[in-house]
């Protein structure tokens, strides 16, 4: 397809609803093709559905669309049938014949494949009635699961590139800047710096120095358990591109980069495809939509360093240098990539831009907390995408308005804690975020409240923990992650993390002393003061927040040499409950060190000196006869 004009775009849109770009279909079968569902074999499911549709002679009436991530990853592979809005979960290729026959031929949705709330009997057929979806507000993820991310026409039909049209033909760069500023949009990568202010200073620096500015999209998402950026690119790559082109128009950039993780093959492929399609249509390249604006985007792969998500380290890596941060006393909007003014924003920030231009800053600012029109620092507007993982029923990707409470996220959207356990903490903001206890569940989720509580918004990872989690071990885990990922350039980060890890190791082994707690806090304060980049200054959050809210657990480890949650291996012992063991003998072959002995149908015994506490016996024991008990230090 050659270059398109604004009229052509309107024509594509006129053809109908998203997903039905050239032809009217009676029904659409939307198969989730996000990374989660792909690993659950959703491509095979889609293929089976297509074959079955062909077989039943429905090919002219029903269309199969492979969409981006639907968000409800715990229940994948997901299939949604539109226009009925029926939600199917766990659909494998073998379910295809029944589904097509019953639902699409006989008009009777298949109950067996529908979602049922835990503890309930009757399934919920409609997507919009499932609590996981009902409480969400989709702005960034507006097209998720509705369009084929690999087809630009689908995106255009869903009002895509409409904002670009408006920005290029009806608005001056200054008007775009003021609109973004008034919307109160703050950086979604973690820092929460107002995007409008950043754009404006970049534009000013470029004009002042007469140097071409550069635009960068940060898709180097490295937090454990976070996959917001990946899903946004996988489900709607053109939204990110459109945001970037609008940004380029506002700032005056001709050159842009997307720095994306090598570990995201699907997202990378879809993004490259989207860029190629946009180039074909003339939406990237020279003279975009005959407006005289030139802009092109290059995709650069990261090589797997966590620290390269930090803006200056990312730029060093883009230049081809060692991915290490540099001092930010002179901002990157003045001297960034190759000493040119550089405007870097996160994937989610860019994806927000087209919606703001389309719907206006007032609409955007009406969502969220605070009064942001005058001063974006006053609150947090819009929505935020979170990846909700850990000990909750419904894990997956969610988008909620800013200011929603943690309780609503964990208990209404997440569906609470499984297996009858109690909620203990929720960790927000990735490895350098903090753990928030139950008493803070009613706190609104926005940039400033989270920071005040000793955590942070981060890029949007949210890990829920239940009463079987040891908070000291959690802090140790995150510190050990950061120790491995610290670049080691500055002393406080390199040595501070290593010494914190040393102390935490000691505490989880029951060898900690009371001075250790004070020392941990002192280390944390010095790191916050002196570290080079945000990785170091925020690295103390997991330690400080767990000491602040779960001090009792630390004390139990130090004073009583006990791990209340029964996690720290050095502090527990395994034993066999004589009343429960029925001598089924299942645990004996499971034990790799032959610590369990006993005859079939007789009481088994466990040799504590041999046991390595790997937990293999607990997994195979059907009668829960293996006990974790506090280790006796007297002996």
């Amino acid at each position: 397809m050659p270059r398109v004009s604004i009229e052509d775009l309107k024509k594509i849109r006129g053809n109908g609803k998203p997903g039905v770009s050239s032809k009217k279909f009676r029904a659409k079968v939307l198969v989730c093709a996000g990374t989660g569902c792909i690993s659950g074999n959703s491509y095979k499911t889609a293929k089976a559905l297509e074959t079955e549709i062909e077989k039943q002679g429905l090919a002219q009436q029903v269309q199969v669309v492979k969409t981006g991530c639907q968000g409800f990853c715990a229940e994948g592979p997901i299939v949604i049938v539109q226009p009925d809005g029926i939600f199917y979960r766990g659909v494998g290729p073998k379910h295809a014949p029944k589904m097509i026959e019953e639902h699409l031929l006989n008009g009777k949705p298949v109950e067996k494949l529908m979602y049922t709330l835990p503890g309930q009997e009757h399934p919920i057929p409609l997507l919009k009635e499932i609590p996981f979806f009902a409480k969400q507000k989709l702005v960034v993820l507006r097209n998720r699961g509705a369009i084929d991310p690999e087809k630009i026409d689908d995106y255009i039909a869903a009002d895509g590139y409409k904002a670009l049209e408006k920005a290029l033909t009806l608005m001056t760069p200054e008007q775009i800047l003021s609109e973004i500023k008034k919307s109160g949009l703050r950086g979604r990568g973690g820092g929460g710096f107002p995007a409008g202010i950043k754009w404006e200073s970049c534009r000013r620096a470029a004009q002042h120095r007469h140097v071409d500015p550069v635009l960068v999209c940060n898709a180097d998402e490295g937090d454990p358990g976070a996959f917001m950026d990946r899903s946004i690119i996988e489900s709607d790559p053109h939204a990110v591109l459109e945001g970037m082109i609008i940004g380029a128009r506002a700032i005056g950039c001709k050159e842009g980069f997307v720095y994306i993780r090598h570990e995201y093959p699907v997202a990378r492929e879809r993004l490259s495809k989207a860029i190629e399609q946009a180039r074909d249509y003339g939406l990237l390249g020279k003279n975009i939509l005959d407006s005289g604006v030139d802009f092109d985007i290059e995709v650069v792969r990261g090589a797997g360093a966590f620290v390269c998500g930090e803006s200056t380290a990312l730029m060093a890596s883009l230049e081809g240098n060692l991915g290490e941060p540099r001092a930010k006393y002179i901002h990157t909007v003045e001297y960034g990539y190759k000493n040119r003014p550089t405007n870097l924003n996160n994937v989610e920030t860019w994806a927000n831009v087209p919606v703001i231009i389309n719907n206006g800053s007032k609409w955007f600012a009406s969502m969220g907390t605070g009064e942001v029109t005058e001063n974006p620092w006053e609150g947090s507007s819009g929505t935020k995408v979170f990846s909700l993982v850990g000990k909750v029923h419904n894990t997956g990707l969610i988008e909620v308005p800013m200011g929603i409470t943690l309780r609503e996220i964990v208990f209404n959207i997440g569906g609470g804690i499984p297996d009858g356990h109690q909620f203990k903490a929720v960790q927000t903001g990735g490895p350098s975020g903090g753990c928030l206890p139950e008493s803070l569940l009613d706190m609104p989720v926005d940039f400033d409240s989270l920071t005040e509580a000793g955590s942070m918004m981060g890029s949007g990872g949210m890990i829920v923990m239940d009463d079987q989690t040891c908070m000291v071990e959690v802090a140790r885990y995150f510190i050990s992650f950061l120790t491995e990922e610290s670049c080691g350039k500055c002393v406080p980060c390199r040595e501070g993390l290593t010494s914190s890890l040393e102390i935490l190791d000691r505490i989880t082994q029951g060898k900690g002393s009371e001075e250790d707690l004070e020392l941990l806090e002192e280390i944390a304060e010095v790191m916050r003061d002196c570290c080079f980049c945000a990785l170091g200054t925020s690295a103390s959050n997991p330690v400080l927040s767990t000491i602040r809210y779960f001090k009792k657990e630390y004390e139990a480890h130090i004073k009583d040499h006990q791990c209340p949650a029964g996690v720290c291996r050095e502090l527990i012992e395994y034993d066999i409950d004589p009343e429960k063991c029925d001598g089924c003998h299942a645990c004996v072959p499971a034990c790799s060190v032959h610590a369990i002995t006993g005859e079939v149908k007789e009481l088994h015994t466990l040799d504590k000196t041999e046991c390595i506490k790997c937990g293999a016996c607990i997994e195979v024991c059907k009668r829960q006869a293996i006990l974790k008990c506090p280790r006796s230090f007297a002996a």
Partner: protein
Amino acid sequence: MKTIKLKIDGIETEAEDRTTILSIAQRLGIKIPNLCHHPLLEPYGVCRICTVEVKSGTRTRMVTACNYPATNGIEVLTNSPRVRRNRKMIVEWMMAQCGHVKILKDMAAEYDISKPRFGRGTDDCILCGLCVRVCSDVVGANVLGFFNRGATREVSTAFGETSEKCIACGACAWICPTTHLKMENEKLERFRTLPGSERLCRYSLMGVTKGALCANSFQCWKCEVEQRFHDQLQTHPIFLGRSRKIKEIDAYVSQLNEMRG
């Protein structure tokens, strides 16, 4: 250039806009300790020893003096309790790593550290990066670099092998504050195997001296050129290219060249 007003430790002073705090303090005779800074290299800011407290309006932040550009109206505290606490901890961390390094021992005495609370290794390298930077930014040989990440970070040549690109200038060993880096005599063998007519001294290779052959049979540590630069000018010949402005060096070199013909 714009002139700005600022206050350092209560002393009011004026300076050019965006001069580093360290250079202003040095001019005023205020001592700020530093380990990774050299006046002839770009500031790097990794040892964080030179951290000072900067008050700007209502905001107080800790910054490194070696690379923080001073702006109008700021108030700098170079020895406040918070600054001392931070420095103490940083020295302690370095002591834990390289306990017997002299400059660290001296600093430890200043910050009342008798025994560091952490301990791991007995290394000599404090990873200040001076050798890496002198090799890439001044010599231009790019022989040294950082390897690995985090606690395993180290300075090395590519793949730990003797580099073909090394001109054996010795600038890295000269600039090293802990004498961790040493020139290995047997590695200088490479120069000795060259035919006599090509056996130029390394200062000749660097362009410091004109066409001189080595008079010390490549026992560079006996070299008079190096000694004189060090004793009389407190600098290494390698900095010549950078510091043409320093008249003394210029005069010295012309004298040297005349002497050597």
